[in-house]
């Protein structure tokens, strides 16, 4: 696709902004694409609705925000209720099964995956929830090579935490690939 428009949304502290940065950075540094990542959030450090927009494109990007995402990720019910209406018809809507009950009122490919529960069962640390989500997104969309994400993680995450992050990414990738539509 010439241009991918993504919106990540959830609650402050879930790591949605971090995940968006990792994805966009991977696209630029390891796949040579243009990308832009911006964010909007409330004044609180934790809690509150958080949104991060990412555009990945072969051509120049001017306006930095996404009006109609072709990929939307919502990790809380609040974010789902607020943002599901903006998805481009036929777009991919990824939600976490524990936190979001989709209403399916919009024209989109709804994918609900047990991201949080799988991370807690297999790894036991919620901190890598966002990386598992990123893995699922890559598995579903084949937007980038998983290797590009791993290379960004290697440059940003302390070595001791790499194993856990890789495992979370793999769990997500497996779930995403299985549910590809």
């Amino acid at each position, binding site marked *: 696709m010439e241009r991918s428009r993504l919106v990540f949304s959830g609650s402050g502290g879930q790591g949605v902004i971090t995940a968006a*940065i990792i994805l*966009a*950075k991977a696209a*630029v*540094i390891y796949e*040579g*694409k*243009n*990308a*832009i*990542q*911006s*964010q*909007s*959030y*409330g*004044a609180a450090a934790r809690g509150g609705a958080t949104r991060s927009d990412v555009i990945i494109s072969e051509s120049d*990007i*001017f*306006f*930095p*925000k996404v*009006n109609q995402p072709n990929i939307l990720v919502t990790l809380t019910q609040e974010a789902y209720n607020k943002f599901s209406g903006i998805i481009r018809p036929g777009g991919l809507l990824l939600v976490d099964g524990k936190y979001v009950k989709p209403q399916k009122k919009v024209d989109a490919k709804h994918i609900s995956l047990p991201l949080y529960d799988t991370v807690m069962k297999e790894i036991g640390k919620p901190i890598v929830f966002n990386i598992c989500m990123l893995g699922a997104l890559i598995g579903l969309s084949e937007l980038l090579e998983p290797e590009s994400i791993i290379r960004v993680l290697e440059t940003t995450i302390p070595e001791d935490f790499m194993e856990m992050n890789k495992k979370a990414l793999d769990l997500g990738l497996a779930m995403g690939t299985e549910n590809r539509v």
Partner: protein
Amino acid sequence: MALSFMEGNEAIARGAIAAGCNFFAGYPITPATTVFANMLKMLPPKGGVCIQGEDEIASMGYCIGASMAGKKALTATSGPGISLYSEQISFAIGSEIPMVIVDVQRLGPSTGSATRGADSDIQFLQWGSTSGVPVIVLAPSDALDCYVLTVHAFNFSEKYRCPVFIASNKEIGMTKESVDLDTAVLPPIVNRTFYSGDGFLPFEAEPAAAPPFLPIGGNTLVRQTSSTHGPDGFITIDPEVIAANQQRLRDKILMAEESLTLYEETVREDADTLVISYGVTSRAVEDSCQQLAESGTPVSTLSLKTLWPVPQKLILEKTKAYKKIVVIEMNLGQYIEEIRKVVPSSNLVFYGQMNGLLISPDKIMEVITHG
């Protein structure tokens, strides 16, 4: 081509390093904090000094002192910090102390919205000091601009011995994007002119020029004061001396208008409309005008990178071929008043928005088409 991925604030820090900045002082504030964080990473390894002041007032004081001692100083804050800097900005203007002040604007008034962007301070930056002396304000649109304009800002501050502002915005400063710094066209680095010879008078200068510089703490006595002073740096009440100094402070900026004017334009053949914008809004304007061009309506664009001194000659020259001039701003109308002084009101269409959101390309197309 080496693509990197960085936010506007990091690009400003990189621009400062490229310009030879060797001193930073500031106090954290969203959305400007990462300028400080990046300077903290980059400056000490190069032998520079990076200080977190106890507050904005102290930080500005550090910058003034460092610049008086010959350092190239940078500070970064947002609107509420500019308020606190204000007294000492006047000092830096009056005592001709070079420095670069980054204002990563957020939505005001007052503490306003820490996490929402706006071009809130466009008039404030010019008029936030006592006496109404002209200042230089540059407005970037993206990360590459942040890098290049910071180098220009240091050059201007050194040449004209004055504070130079960079009017950034939360939506540029905290937005990360792909950028190829190798493609940047940087101006040659300018350093302030040092005085040579005997009989140094700290404020003796040619008309419409900044005085040659000597650092405090050297072998030659350098007198500095925030009070009205003559060429010798002593307080004066002599009306002629006062008038000459006031005129010089004004002329050194206003008479340099053309060499201070920076802009970008897209001229489209057969267009009868020109859209003028600045800052992050120029990005939405570019998108909307590309879409309009694809659908058969050519519209030209002018993106101002220098906001103060107002590039009146440029605006006059660039607007004369067009029937309609559309001005778009991320506030309720600050710079339009400057354009009104140059362009006949009957040709002007204005749209401003200040609600914490970027103005969308769709909205701009609507204004261009139906405004």
